[in-house]
């Protein structure tokens, strides 16, 4: 009996494991159960067999196109957020005066929330906003450039709210890379560009993949900004809007559930591809030896 307990404890199985129980209950009740319930619900339409809701989704262009619309917003926005974070975070490494103020400024938009961001965008980029007034006063354009209530409004909103998040993640990944490595590369004859390309970037790449996945998931579930600064009936009719309409306008819970499942599957495919690429990279320690 004691021997068995020791053997189990060796593998990390002991009474302390019970501490995980509340968290496990939480996950099952609030995530696993609703998820499975949603899948089950999506397979029980009133007529037309279990896959009827999915068939309707893929045959109805108005529904089907929401996937490409959402991807068309979320993929470029996530990519831009990650790519823009890299040079800024790279430049901001190390310790110097004013770093905290600068970081706070860059991260501030995360605290604003989508509604405030949308209001700001409308004031700034809207047809009578500062941006267009300056353009027109300078005579650069006759009619206001349309940058809100269409694709670009949502795109800007996603960048403004998504960038701080990507920046924070990339910064922390960068600070985990031993600065002695770049110094070693310098003494071996590598210039600044080669040091970045051959040493820092390969060590940062797995972190960039993770950052992209998280940024993408955030952007993919865009809803408020697609309504507030987008064109929710046309250009920015994203999948979450379609799901909302199905559930609360048409009261078609089965279709709504099917949309949610499609949304999850599309996200999983993108994340799967990115993580597949990440698995090909070096993902071990980012320090140069015994510290």
């Amino acid at each position, binding site marked *: 009996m004691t021997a068995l307990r020791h053997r189990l404890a060796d593998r990390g199985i002991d009474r302390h494991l019970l501490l995980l129980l509340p968290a496990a209950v939480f996950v099952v009740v609030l995530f696993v159960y609703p998820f499975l319930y949603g899948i089950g619900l999506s397979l029980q339409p009133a007529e037309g067999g279990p896959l009827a809701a999915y068939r309707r989704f893929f045959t109805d262009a108005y529904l089907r196109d929401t996937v490409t619309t959402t991807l068309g917003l979320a993929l470029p926005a996530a990519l831009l957020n990650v790519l823009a974070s890299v040079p800024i975070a790279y430049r901001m490494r190390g310790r110097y005066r004013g770093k905290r103020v600068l970081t706070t400024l860059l991260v501030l938009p995360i605290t604003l929330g989508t509604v405030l961001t949308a209001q700001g965008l409308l004031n700034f980029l809207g047809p009578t906003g500062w941006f267009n007034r300056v353009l027109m006063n300078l005579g650069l354009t006759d009619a206001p450039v349309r940058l809100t209530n269409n694709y670009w409004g949502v795109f800007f909103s996603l960048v403004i709210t998504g960038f701080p998040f990507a920046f924070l993640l990339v910064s922390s990944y960068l600070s985990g890379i031993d600065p002695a490595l770049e*110094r070693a590369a310098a*003494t071996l004859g590598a*210039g600044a560009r080669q040091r970045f390309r051959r040493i820092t970037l390969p060590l940062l790449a797995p972190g960039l993949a993770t950052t992209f996945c998280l940024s993408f998931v955030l952007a993919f579930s865009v809803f408020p900004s697609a309504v507030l600064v987008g064109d929710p009936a046309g250009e920015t009719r994203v999948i979450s809007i379609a799901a909302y309409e199905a559930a609360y306008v048409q009261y078609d819970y089965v279709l709504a559930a099917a949309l949610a499942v499609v949304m999850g599957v599309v996200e999983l495919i993108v994340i799967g591809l990115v993580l597949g690429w990440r698995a090909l990279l070096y993902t071990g320690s980012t320090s*140069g030896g015994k510290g």
Partner: protein
Amino acid sequence: MSGSGFRELRLDGVGRSFGGREALAGLTLTIRRGEFIALLGPSGCGKSTALNCLAGLLPLTRGSIWRDDVRLDTVPPERRGFGMVFQNYALFPHLTVRRNVAFGLQMRRVPRAETRRRVDEALRLVHLGEHAGKLPGQLSGGQQQRVAIARAVVLEPSLVLMDEPLSNLDAKLRLEMRTEIRRLHQTLGLTTVYVTHDQEEALSLADRLVVLREGRVEQIGTPEEVHGNPVSRHVADFMGYRNLLPLKADQVTGEHVVVGGEGVTLTGTPVGAVAPGDLVLAAARPEDLRIAGDGVPATVEVVEYQGREVAVEARTAAGTALFLRSAVRPTPGEAIRVTVDPGRLLVFPRDDT
């Protein structure tokens, strides 16, 4: 810019301050080609600052660095052609041992076949031929250190800089690697600047020692000079003169000085200006103190067995601790008399800090 065809490397008043605090104050030193120099001192003495200034990783506040007639301190690190071994090795964790060692050659656009040959040779030199395909994380600390050394020497740099390369290794490995580094230096004849706080390491490896304290040079000399004739009490302290007795000079006769106080009278050799009546610090190594029939009376307190001999800590009547070695084993509490040759007791003036 690499290549070893130079005569000497000159540091001319090299200084570096950090926010007004002087970490290195005017280091002037000429390093001859092929020489092994050790920068030695306690932590915070400026030795690592000096090394980073040499490598180009830290800009100078003052002074200049020259290789023959070429001014180097304005050249960025990647164009100085120096090799550097870092304290934590700084191996590229995502590259194999082979590609770590090849990195510098690739940066210099050395043809592929030659790169391969030179990397193989460097790995053979540090006995790591069979580990070429591994990642640094799969190697032990000693092996990682050898990769770091191979990576630095494969470029045949005009100068190899080593920043406490053995401080992360255990005692046995440290001794082995020390011999290895000395052997490499003898084989390749690469000019080396080696930073350490371990005086034994510096003495055994270097042709010349530079002893630093608080950013300033205390003494430059061969191991024999620094070990046998430290010019200040700080160097003496650092070189293992464990007996430091605050005494007073009584009388100066020829080349010797009689010092006394606290019931102790000894004869020593003055280092620097010592006049009768001066406060002095008399310094002697434990191995130079002897138990004899006459001399300073003391009581044995602690006896430690150390193989060939025992280390003894004794205390004089006035309470001054004496450290000595002895072939015979005294018992704690025993009354002994301790003496030292006048030539082996160094008397430093005490007015300096």
